[in-house]
């Protein structure tokens, strides 16, 4: 028998593939999830128009504005995800095994049309988490860019992992489909380290590969620190 406080491995299938996950009431004109949260689909036109408007209004600062929008979105999404998972599993997300949470997150991304998410915990010990999103929305719309363009997802991931770890985390995008890579790749870690890496990335004439960015981050990484894992998310205390 597993100990009562041990993370629970569960096999309840893909909640987001339930035929009734998105239910539209045509009389009310509202689409809701089983938890009652209202969702709406944003068209490609809207997203591109929104991005253009932010560029027009904010100039070079548009990247951080878009990332902050993603953070806000991520915060709300994490709250909804928590609520729906708790309803489905009859257990709080923090009590579930990391593998179950990751699988459910990937299911949620796919069901919402945000692409396929995979999470790499191989550098978790040093407080770094790697995330990859294939078929992400923004790069598919922007199509061509000299810098990564998935700022919304970058903010969303930062918020999500901050929520799950219970400690402030930030994210930086290292590779992007709009720059010719096969997928959007991100590094998630403590805000100071990510800020230093983001600054370094900004100064590079040509966008370095994900591996180069990861090595740079690990090179700066304080390996002899105390690490805690919460739902498989690194939380490093210095």
């Amino acid at each position, binding site marked *: 028998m597993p100990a009562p406080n041990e993370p629970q491995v*569960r096999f309840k299938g893909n909640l987001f593939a339930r035929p009734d996950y998105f239910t539209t009431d045509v009389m009310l004109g509202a689409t809701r999830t089983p938890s009652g949260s209202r969702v709406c689909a944003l068209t490609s036109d809207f997203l591109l128009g929104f991005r253009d408007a932010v560029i027009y209004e904010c100039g070079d600062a548009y990247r951080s504005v878009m990332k902050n929008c993603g953070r806000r979105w991520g915060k709300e999404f994490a709250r909804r995800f928590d609520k729906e998972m708790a309803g489905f599993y009859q257990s709080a997300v923090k009590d579930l095994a990391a593998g179950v949470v990751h699988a459910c997150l990937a299911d949620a991304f796919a069901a919402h049309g945000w692409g396929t998410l995979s999470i790499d915990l191989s550098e978790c010990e040093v407080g770094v988490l790697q995330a990859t999103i294939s078929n992400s929305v923004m790069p598919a719309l922007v199509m061509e860019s000299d810098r990564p363009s998935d700022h919304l997802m970058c903010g969303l991931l930062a918020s999500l992992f901050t929520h799950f770890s219970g400690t402030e985390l930030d994210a930086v995008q290292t590779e992007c489909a709009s720059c010719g890579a096969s997928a959007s790749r991100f590094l998630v870690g403590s805000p100071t380290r990510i800020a230093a890496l983001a600054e370094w990335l900004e100064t590079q004439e040509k966008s370095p590969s994900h591996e180069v960015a990861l090595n740079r981050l690990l090179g700066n990484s304080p390996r002899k620190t105390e690490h805690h894992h919460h739902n498989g998310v690194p939380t490093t205390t210095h």
Partner: protein
Amino acid sequence: MNTWFTEIVRDANERLFSPAELDRIMAYYSSMPARLKAAEEIEVIDADFNRNLLVEMRKKFPNRELYSKRVILDLLDGLRVLAQALLMDEPQFLRDRWIFHLIRVIEESGIDPDHVRDVYVEMGNVLNHRLSASSRELMGPLLQELIESTSLVPSY
């Protein structure tokens, strides 16, 4: 996902069904009584399924920690998804709703896939024992796919 029936209706878009489409629909229609019967039989098993399975798994594998009450209860959900896929005659529903997620959880949680396989094999034994021959025949391919899916994850 759209079921095969939705796809046919959408593709037809007010034209007459093609002979192949009609054959598919008629084959499904003629199998409906057997599918309903199988679903009813599963519903009867459903009532004491998890208690019996839990006892059996703990007896066979007393040292395996995976077989908690919750995990065994979750299998009941799996059984219901199997029954839905069988009613719809739509194996893709089982894959989308259950199998892909199961494989991912096994991979990401570092669980021995054989331990998961064993519990599904036992579930299959219960079903084979309790279902009628016609229901077993309908359920067989779906159950086999579910059991074999665990072998897609490398063993540790």
